[in-house]
């Protein structure tokens, strides 16, 4: 049932282009890999999510009501995806913070800090390349000023020059100030981008 190519490019670390698998194919997760989350665990997750993303505070009741039953879907590479009614909300690697799914980010774009890449970088990002500093420091890119600097290890959304929506979300490897001073090197190793396996996944 699992398609090997897909498993590889599912969420994190994808080096393999997706196009070969056809635009509408998605990895189908067998129901056996899904389970209801205990309500106590759910509370904990909710707490964690709010801690990591204070921006979700006013709206969490909307997409993750206290009563709703959260489902956990096991993904390859020890990543767990949490969903409500087959709507993906966020995923969490076993050793990392929860990361909201891009659809959720699109619904509440103000909840997470963002940086911007220039136009030239979009096509690389959307095919799963690692994010490099020049795409951010060039005229088309945007980084927050010193007061609002983002530390390494934080989850950021990445928008693009001339676009409104966030196209990539992931953990920064270096802080924004350092990016500015250095101006080269890898900024984000792996992330969840538009059109990756997670994005195309069908849940029902």
């Amino acid at each position, binding site marked *: 049932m699992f398609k090997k190519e897909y498993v590889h490019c599912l969420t994190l670390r994808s080096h393999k282009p997706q*196009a*070969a698998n*056809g*635009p*509408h194919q998605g990895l*189908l997760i*067998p129901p056996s890999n899904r389970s209801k989350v205990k309500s106590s665990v759910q509370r904990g997750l909710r707490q964690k999510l709010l801690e990591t993303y204070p921006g979700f505070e*006013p*709206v969490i009741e*909307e*997409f993750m009501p206290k009563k*709703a039953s959260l489902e956990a879907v096991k993904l390859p590479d020890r990543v767990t995806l949490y969903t*409500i*009614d087959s*709507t993906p909300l966020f995923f969490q690697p076993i050793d990392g913070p929860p990361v909201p799914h891009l*659809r*959720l980010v*699109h*619904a*509440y*774009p103000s909840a997470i800090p963002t940086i911007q890449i*220039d*136009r*030239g970088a*979009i*096509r690389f990002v*959307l095919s799963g390349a690692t994010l490099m500093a020049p795409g951010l420091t060039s005229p*088309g890119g945007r980084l927050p000023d010193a007061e609002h600097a983002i530390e390494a290890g934080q989850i950021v959304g990445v928008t*693009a*020059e*001339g*676009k*409104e*929506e966030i*196209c990539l979300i992931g953990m920064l490897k270096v802080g924004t100030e350092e990016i500015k001073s250095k101006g080269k090197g890898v900024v984000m190793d792996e992330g969840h981008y*538009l*059109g990756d396996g997670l*994005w*195309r996944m069908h849940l029902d």
Partner: protein
Amino acid sequence: MAEVEAPQARQITYCGVCTLPPEYCEFGGTAKKCEDWLKDNESNLWDKLYSEDALNANLSTLSVSAQERAAKDAAKKEAKAAASEARDSERKAASKVIIKRVERNKRKYVTVVIGLEVFGLENKKIAKDLGKKFATGSSVTRSPAGVEEITVQGDVSDDLSDWLLEVHGAKIPEANIEFVEDKKKKKSEQPIV
């Protein structure tokens, strides 16, 4: 989506072709199709994204050589997508859904369906649906030839094809459904598919 009814959530239209937000369609590899889709379905957005100004603004920000490279890349991607799609539809046209009535015992039959997955249907799900529809046992089994097939208990071949056409008619042309009668007692003696 769960957050649709929420007041603060923004509702985003996603492209029906490549599933990305429309502004990223140009990077999806099916740019032309996406544009047509958007024009048909969301003309406001289309006006915004594909107006002269917007296109020019896109172009002016890149250096000429980078532009060329990007265009080349996009063309390649598009060609690839088109090729794979053509291959796909060819495969679809050539393949058949076989509905087989297998005699299990005197006057007892099972119905075997082979070849649904080519048409983008999920064997397991269909099996479940069929079980519900006919109120019989229905399961996905692996035939000796290694092909996955759906086995429905009881002779439901006629109803089954009707149901297939009714529910999934958009995906399966009627001409591609074929009936086979298998009189052999044991399923293991089936001809290789």
